[in-house]
């Protein structure tokens, strides 16, 4: 600090009145008091919930249509995932799509909500939902299997509409 390249200018010592900084504090308090009568800009969280817009990227889910998930277990999403969060194992089925995911697991501790899986999926089978409340007490709870991932199509319709309009 006291290097030769710079000189320190010290103003003279303050008087007692100046040292109390009363005008400065009054100036700050004026804004605070004005703000007390302005509308609040906070949300009372558990009582009032935040409604995400359609563009929001919440946890990824698998879309279920007519009782079966759309996924054909092509494995593209697990290949594109930068965090290596997805594990897919394919099985054969009698249905028209021929292949289905026998096991589909997303490790929600690893997932970084980037949305690449949704972007790459050829069947619109994996979708970023609007759910954002994801807290676990045990790491095992964070392994979301098909039981937690598959959701009916009605629940993600807003996101599907958004993707149609923007892709």
């Amino acid at each position, binding site marked *: 600090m006291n290097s030769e390249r710079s000189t320190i200018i*010290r103003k003279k010592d303050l008087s007692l009145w100046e040292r109390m900084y009363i005008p400065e504090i009054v100036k700050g308090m004026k804004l605070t008091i004005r703000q007390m009568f302005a509308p609040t800009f906070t949300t009372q969280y558990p009582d009032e919930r935040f409604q995400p817009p359609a563009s929001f990227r919440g946890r990824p889910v698998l879309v279920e249509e007519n009782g079966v998930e759309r996924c054909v277990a092509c494995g593209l999403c697990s290949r594109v995932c*930068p965090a290596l969060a997805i594990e897919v194992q394919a099985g054969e089925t009698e249905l028209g799509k021929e292949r289905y995911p026998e096991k589909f697991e997303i490790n929600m501790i690893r997932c970084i909500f980037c949305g*690449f899986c949704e972007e790459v999926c050829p069947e619109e089978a994996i979708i970023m939902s609007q759910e954002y409340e994801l807290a676990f007490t045990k790491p095992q709870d964070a392994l979301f299997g098909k039981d937690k991932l598959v959701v009916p199509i009605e629940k993600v319709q807003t996101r599907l509409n958004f993707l149609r309009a923007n892709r």
Partner: protein
Amino acid sequence: MSEIVTTPPTSSTGRTLRTEEMILNMGPQHPATHGVLRLELVVDGEIVVDVIPHIGYLHRCFEKHCEHMTNYQQVIPYTDRMDYVASMTNEFGFVVAAERLLKIQVPERVEYIRVIMAELQRIASHLIAIGTYGIDIGAFTPFLYCFRDREKILDLFEMTCGARLLYNYMWVGGLSHDIPPDFIPKAKEFCAYFKPNIKELNDLLTYNEIFVKRTANVGVLPADVAINYGCSGPMLRGSGVDWDLRRDDPYSIYNKFAWDVCVGKGEMGTVGDCWDRHIVRAREMEQSIRIIEQALEQIPEGNVQAALPKRIRPNPGEVYARIESPRGELGYYIVSDGSATPYRIKARSPAFSNLSVINEISKGAMIADMVAIAGSIDIVLGEVDR
């Protein structure tokens, strides 16, 4: 202002007492270090003799990870996580580098949207810097108003790309998707709303006598030292060096807008003190608003995904591209071996170089001033450690 006692203390019997320097650890859990930074202070009483920063608590192997991606696009979410309060500019730097390597030209509309996003991000980042700096000095109130305004910017980002902090919005060759139709009116509304708030913030904090007393003449960084240590951004401009990559090494379309580079002039004390660094950030927000307003007026129509390459396979070669992030010169050095995976990526992070100067500027300061000095550097440890 007490004088420094030079005579050695004596005991009641008149014997000379031995004194020695003490080592004091500031951090990694210290609230004023803005993340997990440990500063080892060697103190002589109340005077700081030496400062040794210990970093690396947030190291996540960014560069090594990139070598193991299956393509270039996958690197982008990782760049987001370097400087997590200015993710948009991190992506911006990477896509500019990758596009130079691929030699692709992105559509005009994409450039405009990128500039708007980057400048909004600069405001958001400076708001955090200013707000938390207020807390360091002991002014809690401005922080809340800063966060109120930052929230409005995050809302704009959220309606565009779906995330509030880590966007993954700018892709190599374009954007993940276009801005929604109501973005432009909302962004204009924000600019009109925010301009008076900058003045309010300056009245509340910048020109507050208490704040000035704590920051003026503290942590003086002379211009030649700043240059020698590779400081950039508001750190360098605060020392009176007129250098901004947006003007001096133009990338994207910054040369289309009229705006000024803000430099510290030592209005409250010495050129290059903490107050100068603070005022540069406050004034840069005004300039960012100017850029955004011009860009919103001129933005052309077009398809933002037209130039997205199907497969990104650059020819063997290397490139270094740098942009002006809110903290300074953010550079990416990419080496390609012709495959779809980057061979090597090196990130030059501004906060790392800025932090290295802390020892130089805090020698001889009081311990209480250390907090003011460390805060004025505006480090983000995610970027220092990567």
